[in-house]
């Protein structure tokens, strides 16, 4: 069925939005099969975003974690410093093609907000970004960046004051202004067709990484890993490897203070099936079906759901999902700084922190590709405070 990944996915939205999501699906299908649209996006990815991003052979890191090779896919080197720009630019081009004059977005870490504000500045589109007040505090530089880029940042002071609540508010805006507004969703979550649109736009990561790894290694890597918040950098990385049955795929969720404490954001490893933000997937909820508050040191992973395709990949066993805690992520953060001279975002620091566990499970003689989804400038405050 269209928009479904096994039993997951779907379009659980108010009727007011149904015509809009149907229109969006048709518009994306049409644009995606139009060579002129693809050429324009490729040109911008090359000349503006800085693609292809390098695959860095991280030798000192590999030695430190006990793996033969660790290859870092450097999304941190894109313009704006995270993979979010791949999807933001593609969707902003789509919005323009659909004749929408106004774009709205939600943001957690602020990376998607910055990417969206950037794409809208480039294309001359009005931009409004919703952000939880807790996230505005812990990612202050990104709030300033968005405003510099001409976006209006609207504070969301409801619920847990994080990404989940920003999504609620963005959906409310969309319900109200649906006729002229494009909702530029930032992860592979939400109602169909977003999980598919975002996967397609992010799959450039995996396509490049696969070719670069084969170039470097002369064969496919043994393991490919990425951090999973909503799951966009992970699905974009995994997509190219799904049919390579010999390649183990591994998604790393935010274990927060530890799964046993209940203070985490690990929707697959610590959640149950439910419906949130228009899609059926694994969510963190109580026994009455109320969505639980989440916790993670990284704002970008602090979300109580996950993209529906990941839910299906978990159930099928094709991808293994694990969780690493705040403390482990902070260690991973420091390790990458010291061994490679790369300051990562706290989100992919979870994937770095997981590498010793990869070695434990897969042995030392393996080659691993890690999606380094973003750089750490935005997190310096948080890291300084936790030191």
């Amino acid at each position, binding site marked *: 069925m269209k928009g479904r990944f096994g039993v997951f996915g779907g379009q659980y*939205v*108010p009727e007011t939005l149904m*015509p809009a999501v149907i229109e969006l699906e048709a518009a994306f299908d049409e644009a995606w099969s139009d060579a002129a649209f693809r050429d324009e996006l490729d040109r911008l990815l090359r000349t503006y975003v800085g693609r292809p991003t390098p695959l860095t052979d991280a030798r000192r890191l590999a030695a430190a974690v006990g793996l033969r090779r660790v290859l870092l896919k450097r999304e941190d080197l894109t313009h704006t410093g995270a993979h979010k720009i791949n999807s933001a630019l593609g969707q902003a081009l789509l919005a323009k093609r659909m004749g929408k004059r106004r774009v709205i977005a939600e943001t957690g870490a602020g990376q998607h907000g910055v990417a969206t504000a950037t794409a809208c500045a480039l294309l001359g589109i009005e931009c409004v970004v919703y952000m939880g007040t807790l996230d505005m505090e812990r990612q202050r530089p990104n709030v300033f960046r968005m405003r510099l880029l001409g976006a209006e940042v609207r504070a969301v002071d*409801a*619920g847990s004051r994080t990404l989940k609540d920003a999504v609620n508010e963005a959906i409310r805006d969309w319900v109200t202004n649906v006729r002229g507004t494009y909702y530029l969703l930032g992860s592979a979550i939400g109602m169909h067709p977003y999980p598919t649109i975002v996967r397609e736009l992010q799959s450039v990561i995996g396509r490049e990484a696969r070719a670069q790894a084969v170039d470097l290694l002369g064969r496919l890597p043994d393991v490919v890993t990425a951090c999973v918040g909503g799951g966009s950098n992970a699905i974009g990385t995994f997509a190219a490897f799904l049919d390579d049955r010999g390649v183990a795929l591994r998604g790393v969720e935010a274990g927060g203070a530890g799964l046993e404490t209940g203070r985490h954001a690990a929707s697959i490893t610590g959640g149950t099936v*439910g419906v949130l933000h228009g899609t059926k997937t694994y969510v963190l909820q109580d026994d009455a*079906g*109320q969505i639980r508050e989440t916790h993670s040191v990284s704002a970008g992973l602090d979300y109580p759901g996950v993209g529906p395709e990941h839910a299906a990949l978990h159930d099928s066993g094709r991808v293994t999902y694990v969780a690493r805690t705040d403390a482990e992520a902070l260690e991973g953060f420091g390790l990458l700084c010291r061994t490679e001279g790369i300051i990562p975002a706290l989100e992919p620091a979870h994937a770095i922190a997981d590498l010793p566990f990869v070695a434990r499970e897969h042995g030392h003689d393996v080659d691993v590709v890690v999606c380094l989804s973003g750089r750490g400038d935005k997190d310096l405050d948080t890291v300084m405070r936790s030191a």
Partner: protein
Amino acid sequence: MTLTTITGSERISRAFGRARAEGRMAIAIYLTVGFPDRATTPALLRAALDGGADLIELGVPFSDPMADGTTIQRAGEAALRGGVRLEDCVADGASLVSERDATVLLMGYLNPFLRFGPERLAAECVRSGIAGVIVPDLPAEESGELDTVLVPADVARIDLYAPTTPDERLARLLPAARGFVYCVSLTGVTGARAGLSDDVRPFVQRVRGHTTLPVAVGFGIGRPEHVRALRGIADGVIVGSAAIDAVAQGGERALRDLVRSLREAGAA
């Protein structure tokens, strides 16, 4: 007990039929169960009936109410702080039905209903005489999971339609509608508004072209002049945020007065 001798759809059509026979619009009142607190809700529901409400929508609180404006969001947060669960909503509904023979519907987001279990939901509605269920984040395309158990139980799952719904969609979906048709008056979230949306008249006329069921208009309705303006256009109105605002300002008495004034406006 005679509860099982009348189905949910029959209850709803009886409520609209009575109002029509009296030459007035039906008044449906939405209240969040557990606002301002759990203990007060039963008395508020009775006050709404005393003021002349024809249907009661029991708002089931949810942590992420994406179709609601601030009034219902805040009411839901208060209810959740008080620990209100779907079981409490069903219990309040059951006593309204048994004491007042009222027409009661549950209105809430899908996830708590799924967690409760669709089959258990259907069984509880039948057992307590709850006439129907309204789920704002469940468009027709996704309704199968609930419909497979609610339809055989004769519990009406009420569809919502919006001004953005095209004619082709109305023509395709309305033949399967049950109970009444819920027309969302505007493109937007719930919340009291000063004026009526320009969309509402042409929209309700479009809906009428595809159904003989009663048509009620909700979202943004809360003043007597709104009800007067909808006379001859719709069969009823649904009032939520304005009812909650009244409760917040003046409790039972203010709610009863509001309902009475709306009912009078619909009869003028």
